[in-house]
């Protein structure tokens, strides 16, 4: 049995997925990056091996993705998250033609062709508004964990319009609204709506072609899913593995390499 690994090294989190030769997930691991990307990469790799019950020598190929992909010393190849998210999304939802990935740091809209190949992409990587960081600002201002924000926003009755376009000022705007007596639920709904409209704008840059698959950490947020469907005017595919989509895509690329018999970048031989 052939095994491969995909690692996704972002600036705050490292994720790894191990697949077998039938592309079934045999292990997943995630950790927050505390020290540096390089050591986090090694740690998450070791962790996924443990979870999968595999040893390093059993891994036929490893592909690294994310901003930290070049820091992964044990990676055999590097592929951008754009290609990886597209690959992962299409593998799970074969009729995907557009992928929206809202990560903690950046947001991507990807247009995908019939063969799952990337045709075009647009990114928001300079400005935090429209990314998970906007929600991070809310989490901080409301002193609530990120995971609570979505469910709370779903209980809004009168969403507050958020006008600030800058995460830096978002916190003060939120506090201002709360001081005026608005409910946290309504403020949060406003923030989610703000993100949704920015992301919709990004999607329109590559063209709104169904089916749309929503990936990335923020895809676990039910309020975000609901609002995006509303703003885009069409249903979204959401994976239970959305948070790991980059690593899954990377692992699928690794599987391509392994099946093609490509050697690992290091000199060690893969046991047959």
């Amino acid at each position: 049995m052939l095994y491969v690994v995909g690692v996704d090294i972002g600036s705050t989190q490292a994720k790894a997925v191990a697949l077998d030769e039938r592309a079934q997930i045999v292990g997943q691991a995630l950790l927050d990056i505390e020290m540096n990307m390089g050591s986090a990469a090694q740690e998450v790799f070791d962790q996924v091996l443990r979870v999968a019950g595999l040893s390093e020598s059993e891994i036929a190929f490893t592909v690294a993705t994310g901003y930290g992909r070049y820091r992964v010393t044990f990676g055999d190849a590097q592929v951008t998250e754009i290609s990886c998210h597209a690959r992962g999304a299409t593998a799970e939802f074969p009729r995907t033609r557009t992928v929206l990935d809202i990560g903690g740091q950046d947001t991507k809209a990807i247009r995908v062709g019939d063969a799952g190949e990337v045709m075009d992409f647009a990114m928001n990587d300079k400005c935090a508004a429209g990314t998970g960081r906007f929600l991070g600002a809310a989490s901080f201002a409301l002193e609530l964990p990120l995971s609570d924000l979505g469910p709370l926003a779903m209980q809004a009755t009168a969403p507050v319009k958020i006008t600030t376009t800058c995460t830096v000022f978002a916190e003060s705007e939120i506090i201002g609204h709360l001081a005026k007596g608005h409910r946290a639920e309504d403020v949060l709904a406003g923030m989610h709506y703000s993100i949704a409209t920015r992301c919709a704008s990004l999607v329109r840059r590559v063209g709104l072609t169904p089916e749309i698959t929503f990936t990335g950490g923020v895809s676990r947020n039910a309020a975000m899913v609901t609002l995006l469907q509303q703003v885009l005017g069409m249903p979204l595919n959401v994976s239970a593995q959305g948070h790991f989509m980059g690593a899954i895509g990377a692992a699928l690329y690794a599987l391509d390499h392994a099946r093609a018999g490509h050697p690992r970048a290091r000199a060690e031989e893969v046991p047959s």
Partner: protein
Amino acid sequence: MAETPSGVLRVDARAAGQRLVNQWLANIHTAPARGQPVAYIFVMGNAIEILRSFGFEMVFPEINSLQTGVRKAAPDFLAKAEDYGFSPDVCSYVKADVGLMLSNMEHPSGTHMPTPDLAIASSLCNVYIKWAEIWERRFGTPAFVLDIPGKRFESWRPLPGTPQYEADKRWVEGQLRDLIARCEDITGKKFDPDRLAEVETHVNEMVRLWTEILQLNQHRPAPYNSMLDGLTYIGVLNAWRGTPEGVEYMRLLRDEVADKIARGEGRVPNERFRLIFSGTPCYVNMRRLVELFESHGGVFAASDYLTYAAGGLDSSGLFYDPSRPLESLAEVTTLASQLGLSNHFFSHHTLARQVKEYAADGIVYHGIKSCRTVATSMADNREYVTSRYGLPTLYIESDLIDPRYWSDAQIKNRVDAFFEVLEQRSLLDGGQ
């Protein structure tokens, strides 16, 4: 020229170009002492031919500013301008020039920039005019605004003899006559049409050679990278436009490029993808930007920058008629602006055509944060080209010279993803 070990003579245009640039800067430095009048001009639209006929020394503040980026002096100059009160959103070239003014005109190249006796701002970039107003305040030099009507819409094709063309040409000619009168006032010399004709003859030759050099890059592999080597070429040809030295340099350059083709030498050793570039360089990270592409085997075979930043020297095959020097200057200036120089706003079809001409695989759009001339509708242009022509395109952004807008990781990410797209496409095409 340098000999190679095999004894074959190799052309060295680079050394010649460097010498010329150094000489030009030295001339600028000594112009006031030599009593030579100094003109501040811009690359797009400047009537340099008339100025040469009057013996002005040319200063290109745009080149001064881009050099502050190249020489890593931009942050200091930009900070000085912003401390003085200029908004961060103002064009970074303008701010770098203000920084120069606030640094006693001591340019990082070691040149002391003289104050202008004449300043010409064309309407081909509206910021030129705001920039010239700053000089008016600082130096007391009245601006000469040369209004050059550009394309009114994408398919605008001025034909000599038509009312539109004649009206525009008449307007440009009228202003050129005004300019001549101004030059006569400043220099105390009379206008010399023969001298103008002589300058134009040199420009004609440079146009011929530049057009050829641009076309030579259609060869596979491309002998030069239009957004790296090309930048050095235009620095020289702008500064020496209309001179025998400029002609000689361009001959050398053409020979060097042709020589590379004869030897099968491409700029990128394993050329995998050919690209068209739209936008300006990021002068503060000039090499790095190109390296990101070359590391994937990508070469910029052509760019719109080498049209407008070469002062329209390709002029779409237009030549001066030295027997009617002033009239033909007006004609060519008008036509060049409408066929090439004002194309920023309507470049979608031109870019797609260049993809064909250069057998390119896609277009890279480089948006500039402080330059609205380049960036305002670039995303719309890209959207049109992508959907109408189905061409792969990439959008990256930074700035002309402001290093705060360069984000290496983000740009690299986009570039890497773009090459993944191109690789996929070539695999799929290959499989058909």
